[in-house]
């Protein structure tokens, strides 16, 4: 026996009560896109990628001085703790903690915004779909507009989606303090010292390096296509041209791969890169790790115990 609370509303009140709070993030996303678009030159596709990762110089924050091994372990474990929260309150608190971490790590705002933009689509789907599709349970509050009983707006669904969004945002905000407060080789070295196979770190370094090379190559090829009069449309010819472009990209990349590998072997590559810098684990690193994990545990306790 479903015993939900049904609230009947005329249409305009629904707009006011429910769509207005949803519109705020939507407008925010639209604005972010606009900002991103304005940064790329007019008439061109936006630049889909890749600033260099951490600046070698680095800042002087806690995060920059934190030993990379304990930083990785702590923040990874903490992320899983956040991901297992279930209620909105603790999840919002987690966003607050992440924001604090961002400020301490002095993460560049633009990169943080890009990360948020990247999850906006997926999370937005939950926010829009869940209130309408969550099954009605005992003591749910359902808003029904103009007597359309089939299309009830379930507030429990909205709360669930909002909690998911808050968790996703909280973890996404932690990426910058985790990944760009140390140069990439140092982070990967830390990973390999934690038991991740060394080859994996090397592969990440190589891919990261050649990602930029291939992207430039792709941009040159796109410029060539434009000069020859190619314009993107929704038709078969566009797809065919794009496929030839992809095929050419793969052919060139394979050939370059062979050359790169021969060059590496000619320089004496035997499956190792030199160690970037020796790592030192100090008491302060561990202290910070323990404190941070305690924070995460406290959030979980709040999540599960509080009424």
């Amino acid at each position: 026996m479903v015993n939900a609370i049904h609230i009947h509303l005329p249409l305009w009140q629904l707009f006011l009560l429910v769509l207005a709070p949803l519109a705020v993030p939507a407008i925010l996303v639209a604005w972010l896109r606009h900002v991103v678009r304005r940064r790329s030159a007019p008439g061109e596709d936006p630049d889909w990628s890749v600033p260099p990762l951490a600046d070698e110089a680095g800042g002087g924050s806690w995060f920059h001085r934190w030993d990379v091994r304990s930083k990785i372990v702590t923040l990874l474990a903490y992320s899983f703790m956040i991901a297992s929260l279930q209620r909105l309150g603790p999840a919002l608190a987690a966003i607050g903690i992440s924001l604090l971490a961002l400020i301490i790590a002095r993460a560049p705002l633009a990169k943080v915004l890009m990360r948020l933009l990247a999850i906006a689509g997926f999370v937005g789907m939950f926010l829009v779909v869940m209130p309408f599709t969550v099954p009605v349970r005992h003591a749910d509050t359902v808003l029904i507009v103009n007597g359309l009983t089939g299309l009830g707006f379930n507030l429990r669904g909205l709360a669930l989606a909002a909690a998911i969004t808050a968790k996703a945002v909280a973890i996404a905000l932690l990426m910058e303090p985790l990944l760009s407060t140390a140069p990439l080789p140092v982070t990967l070295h830390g990973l390999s010292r934690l038991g991740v196979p060394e080859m994996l770190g090397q592969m990440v370094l190589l891919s990261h390096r050649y990602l930029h090379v291939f992207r430039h190559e792709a941009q040159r090829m796109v410029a060539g296509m434009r000069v020859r009069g190619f314009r993107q449309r929704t038709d078969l010819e566009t797809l065919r041209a794009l496929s030839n472009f992809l095929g050419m990209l793969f052919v060139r990349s394979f050939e370059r791969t062979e050359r790169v590998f021969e060059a590496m072997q000619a320089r004496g590559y035997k499956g190792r890169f030199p160690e970037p810098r020796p790592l030192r684990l100090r008491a302060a690193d561990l202290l910070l790790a323990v404190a941070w994990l305690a924070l995460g545990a406290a959030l979980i306790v709040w999540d599960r115990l509080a009424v």
Partner: protein
Amino acid sequence: MHISDGVLPTAVAVGCYGLSAALAVWSARRSRSRELPKLAVMTAAFFVASLVHVPFGPTSVHLIIPGLTGALLGPSAFLSIGLGLLLQCLLFQFGGLTALGANALMMGLPALACGWFFQAFKGVPPLRQSIVGGLAGALGTVLAALVLAGLLMTGGEDFAGVAKIALLAHVPVILIEALVSGFTVGFLARVKPELLKPAYLRGA
């Protein structure tokens, strides 16, 4: 479409991590170890390819190409895709730190299936290879969508609606992926057919 943090139950996310790690190790074993640096460089190429946006009416979709990756890399494809997702984490794109394992399964399993499918049925004539490549592209997207929906369903009945919508959203992408994969394989069959052979850059 990638799964974001905080969606999957923690047990599922952790389980996906374990399964992905095991599959990545298997995938690395199947590649010759001296070829792994080459695989890394090729991953960069696939990553760049996945940044290409195809216009679709008023909007645009970006390619996932699990089918193509599988067809070209065979068993190494899983490692390559895992690496690609790790890169995506590093760059300022999709975070998804806790969902990394789930995303690797979502893209990697279809890629493995498509690689097997393509090598088993590709035949010799370029036209046939192109058609089989297209089918592999479609298959890859369908499988990816199914894995995504299955993972979402682990969250309980509350997630059923979202899983359905996510499946529906993949329908137009299936057609685009099929056409692009088919044309690309056709191009490679004409221009550099050895890339489509099983012995190239993959486990013997």
